[in-house]
């Protein structure tokens, strides 16, 4: 099996060749390794690379995987292009604003339908006793501002849209 993977634009060419006893011969950018992998569960793998032990945690997304080695995070990507296109998407018409954590809306700082500037705080969201300003990602008209002060929002929910 051959594949090419990227970490922050750095290219890694990987070939995995199965040997007997569940071990693999890996060629990574031309350097060879003896490797075995025991999946403790689908998120965690016990890796043995030339005798050295690594407990590695992986996210389940296959295109851009977060991989933790000794607690350090690496973003391993399947295509070099994905980073670029991600940025492009962001630049062009990104408008839905959501956050990765749940929380409670403390205050709304701008009105539905008003004009907002890029970086202008639109609301304050509180989680775990910390208040976080949620800012407009671009200048435009504020739409779909459904949340009101005191309301609880789920992780990933769209808080508002800037058009």
């Amino acid at each position, binding site marked *: 099996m051959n594949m090419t993977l990227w970490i922050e634009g750095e290219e890694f060419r990987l070939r995995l060749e199965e040997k007997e006893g569940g071990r693999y011969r890996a060629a990574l950018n031309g350097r060879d390794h003896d*490797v075995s992998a025991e999946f403790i569960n689908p998120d965690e793998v016990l890796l043995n*690379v030339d005798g050295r032990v690594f407990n590695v945690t992986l996210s*389940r997304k296959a295109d851009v*995987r977060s991989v933790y080695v000794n*607690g350090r995070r690496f973003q391993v990507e399947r295509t070099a292009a994905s980073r670029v296109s991600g940025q492009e998407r962001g630049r062009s018409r990104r408008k839905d604003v959501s956050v990765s954590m749940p929380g*409670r809306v403390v205050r709304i700082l701008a009105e539905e339908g008003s004009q907002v500037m890029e970086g202008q705080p639109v609301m304050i969201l509180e989680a775990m006793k*910390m208040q976080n300003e949620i800012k407009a990602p671009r200048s435009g008209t504020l739409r779909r501002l459904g949340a009101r002060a005191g309301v609880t929002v789920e992780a990933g929910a769209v808080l508002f849209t800037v058009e």
Partner: protein
Amino acid sequence: MFRKILIANRGEIAVRVIRACREMGIVPVAVYSEVDRAALHVRLAEEAYALGGSSPAESYLNIEKILAVARSCGAEAVHPGYGFLAENARFVERCEQEGLAFIGPPSRPMDLMGRKTTSRKVMSEAGVPIIPGTMEPIRDERDLRDAAAQVGYPLLLKASGGGGGKGLRLVRDASELASGFNMARSEAESSFGDSAVYIEKYIDDPHHIEVQILADHHGRTVFLGERECSLQRRYQKVLEETPSPFLDDETRRRMGETAVRAAAGIGYRNAGTVEFIVDGRKNFYFLEMNARLQVEHPITEMVTGIDLVKAQLEIAAGIPLDLKQEDIRPQGCALECRIYAEDPDNDFLPSPGRILHLHNPAGGFGIREDSGVYEGFVVPFEYDPLLAKLIAWGKTRDEALRRMRRALSEYRIYGIKTTVPFFKRILSHPRFLGGDYTTHFIADMEKETPIESSEEKRVAVLAAGLKSLWDARHEASYSSRGAVSPWKLRGRAESHSNASLR
């Protein structure tokens, strides 16, 4: 001794108190909010009653709801933990009215310590050194110039009415004085409804060191050594150790005796902590008194062998302390790391959510974990992000540090982000290892670029490649994308008798 105690708190500190009750043969009663229905403190209690609601105001801050539970279940005492109602003098008064023993100080010393200018005055009168500055609020610009000249620059303008960084201004020289005064006054007014401001000398690059005391109801007050708390991030403590690598024995003894004098001077009872600011020449000044158990109390327990929660309950029950000052001889060193649900890779953003998997590292000699969570628990967003405290003891500081580093390397938690990687960085930093750090340390460290490891990068690539292979082999048994619960995936993987890549 009490027969039944209500614990008016949640998380690791509620668990800590529940364990002490169980060990003493006292029935621990938990109270819980809606989102905490299956929280660890509920699971470990002997009795548990719902408060309803999930916000702090509806639940753990609701004095009358808590008192109603205490009445109906027949609790004889209330332990407030820290935070929530722990330093609420009105709660103490209400407990007193209800005939419930409050496990902490009486309402008067608690009230005295709650107000800044009052506590400065009281401490100064008791002969405790306070940070040089004015004892009364500054009225006008003339008073201001005179007082500033007397105190000297740099100085701090501080609100009399409260803390938390509100109404606080650093003034480096006379040219900044007038504008700083106006800004501090207006912020103090808007924050506390009180524009009164006073002056304190600014102590640069200080140490933050606190002394643990115990005071019984029979006139005995002792100190149990100090805790170095200078490792802070945005005024939040992140790692504490005892003894302080900065102090010498003579300063340590003087600080301990000063703390005892401070506590005795205000009629303090039960466990308490006197916080000091210590400058580079080891001059120490009273900062504030925490009229409760501290988060970091375990490191004192590790070196003294004294169970502070047990001591709290005994004192509250009127039992005289059987500890003499000369019997308290701390052994070795202890450190505590506060494991928060925060993402250190993303500006320490809160990270609530379900803990999908937890390998707790509390194994082996010299390691202790005080945790409030378990695998499968959903960490709520409503409360403080403290998940657990990891504590290491060693005969020497070096041994304790090495044990802590080893334990951190075993810590694995998925589903939510934690500060574990951040601690690994601190514990491999030469300045921290050398014991040479002040309150500025973490801000300085965060400016440094972490060392890249090309080997770890290669391992990450290998793991990602092998994972793709593994996914392909297990595709038949589950669809690898979409709204599949992680638990399902895990379940299916585990159901294979051989999970290795064969």
